[in-house]
């Protein structure tokens, strides 16, 4: 098994590196080239980089296990994300895509800074990205290390492989190498998931669909299990429903398509990709549970071990390909986040404040990419409990950005007058998330309710209320005062 895995891993790394090196032909002369490919991505690259960035190793490991343990509610959770993302992209992306070109946006924090005319807001958003997304990126690298450890390889070796891939495939040609390797990895992820589904199906001791469904019914996971109370469903879905407007790595991808046709196709292909990938992964989770009931595999109490357990029942070649596809999912998400967070740091703290040449900025950009990647690797190596657990809360910490971003995309006039509201909304929303993480611990905070309302909803209500109050006050002040006796 280890020999086969090593050979397939080498092939995956070599092919990816050749693709990354080939992408250098697009040329990197400015930060616009380095971070967003100078708004020149074609249809295929736009769609595939969006899909591969969005879908992390969580799908093949986390979602399979979640479905195995908690049932069909996991499908609802993941599809709620897809439905909302497709809608938000459709409603806002054309406008944002046009404005990004016109106003030369590179980073999402720069976008908010420009729209609200507040450098302070841009800087705070960049800091929020760093706090929320570095633990999340570390979790991707930890996932690879743990996966390799479950195969009998060294955990540290997994971290070294993951860190090297994230670093090399980013530094070679910035967004171009990230997007082209994303496309390669996206294809690998779907192909491997289809193969995984097929091989799991062949493990079933029966071909009678009714027996399979009855088995799942008897376990009680075809409906809503007690796990999926309405509050839990809300707590899980709410941060992800707004993922498309709060996470910089995906917001930035709206800027990139070369033309409107590529943008349209990006949304279309991403929707189809997301739907198929989600359905396949959930069915694998359900089939794994059937296999447990038929005693083909043992009962797995720790849900993240469902996928590794299934993989270990397969022949070495398909098993290795599936493991590589999980590594690919983690790497494609991690390098996109690193590049995106770097773009915010560079554009908001360096390029906009100092007069420096393009060459200097690119050198510093690479240095920041290397530093951030090494920080995530160090966290993955040390595995400090609190920081690793914070990855669960990443989308909740970013949630205050939902109303701030959506209001700015709605074309509200004189956004400048809302800048203090936006700053306060961001600080208050993120503070609620971090405060609860400190009080309850990040994992418990995710599901804790206060007055029957999940923390994520409190974050959203607070930040939205502050912005709306600011809007109402400003609008009221602007209205002409009508005094008694006047007409």
């Amino acid at each position: 098994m280890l020999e086969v895995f090593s050979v397939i891993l080498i092939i995956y790394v070599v092919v990816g590196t050749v693709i990354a090196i080939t992408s250098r032909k697009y040329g990197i002369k400015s930060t616009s080239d380095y971070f967003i490919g100078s708004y020149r991505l074609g249809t295929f690259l736009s769609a595939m980089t969006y899909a591969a960035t969005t879908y992390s190793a969580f799908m093949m490991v986390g979602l399979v296990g979640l479905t195995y343990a908690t049932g069909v509610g996991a499908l609802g959770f993941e599809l709620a994300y897809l439905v909302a993302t497709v809608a938000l992209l459709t409603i806002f992306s054309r406008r944002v895509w046009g404005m990004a070109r016109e106003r030369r946006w590179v980073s999402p924090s720069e976008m908010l800074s420009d729209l609200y005319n507040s450098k302070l807001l841009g800087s705070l958003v960049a800091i929020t990205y760093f706090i929320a997304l570095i633990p999340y990126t570390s979790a991707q690298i930890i996932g690879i290390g743990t996966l390799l450890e479950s195969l009998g390889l060294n955990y540290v070796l997994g971290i070294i492989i993951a860190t090297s891939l994230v670093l090399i495939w980013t530094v070679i040609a910035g967004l171009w190498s990230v997007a082209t390797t994303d496309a390669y990895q996206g294809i690998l992820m779907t192909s491997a998931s289809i193969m995984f589904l097929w091989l799991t199906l062949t493990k079933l001791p029966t071909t009678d669909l009714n027996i399979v469904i009855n088995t799942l019914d008897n376990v009680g996971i075809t409906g809503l299990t007690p796990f999926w109370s309405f509050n839990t469903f809300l707590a899980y879905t709410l941060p992800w429903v707004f993922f498309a407007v709060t996470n910089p790595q995906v917001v930035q991808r709206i800027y990139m398509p070369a033309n409107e046709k590529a943008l349209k196709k990006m949304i279309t292909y991403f929707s189809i990709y997301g739907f198929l990938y989600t359905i396949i992964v959930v069915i694998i989770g359900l089939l794994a549970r059937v296999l447990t009931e038929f005693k083909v595999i043992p009962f797995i109490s720790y849900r993240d071990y469902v996928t590794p357990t299934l993989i270990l029942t397969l022949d070495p070649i398909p098993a290795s390909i599936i493991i590589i596809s999980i590594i690919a999912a983690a790497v494609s998400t991690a390098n996109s986040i690193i590049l995106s967070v770097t773009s915010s740091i560079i554009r908001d703290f360096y390029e906009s404040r100092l007069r420096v040449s393009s060459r200097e900025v690119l050198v510093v950009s690479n240095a920041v990419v290397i530093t951030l990647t090494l920080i995530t690797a160090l966290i993955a190596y040390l595995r400090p409990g609190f920081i690793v657990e914070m990855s669960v809360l990443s989308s909740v910490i970013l949630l205050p950005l939902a109303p701030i971003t959506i209001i700015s995309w709605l074309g509200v006039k004189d956004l400048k007058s809302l800048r203090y509201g936006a700053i306060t909304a961001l600080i208050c929303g993120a503070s609620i998330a971090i405060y609860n993480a400190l009080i309850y611990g990040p994992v418990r905070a995710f599901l804790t309710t206060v007055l029957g309302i999940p923390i994520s909803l409190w974050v959203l209500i607070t930040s939205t209320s502050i912005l709306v109050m600011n809007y109402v006050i400003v609008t009221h002040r602007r209205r002409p005062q009508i005094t008694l006796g006047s007409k």
Partner: protein
Amino acid sequence: MKHTRIYVIMFLVMIVLFYTVPYTTLRDVKGLTLITYWSLLTLAWIITTILYIRRW
């Protein structure tokens, strides 16, 4: 603008259907009912979106 408004209203209806029906009408269903419901609802939404995008 009119089409966008209709699309946004449809999205809100979609979200209501996505969250409420499984927790009311389909609360105690068995078999493939819930998985089919969420899958078909999502598929219908993707098709609606693709048709809407063509009008851009």
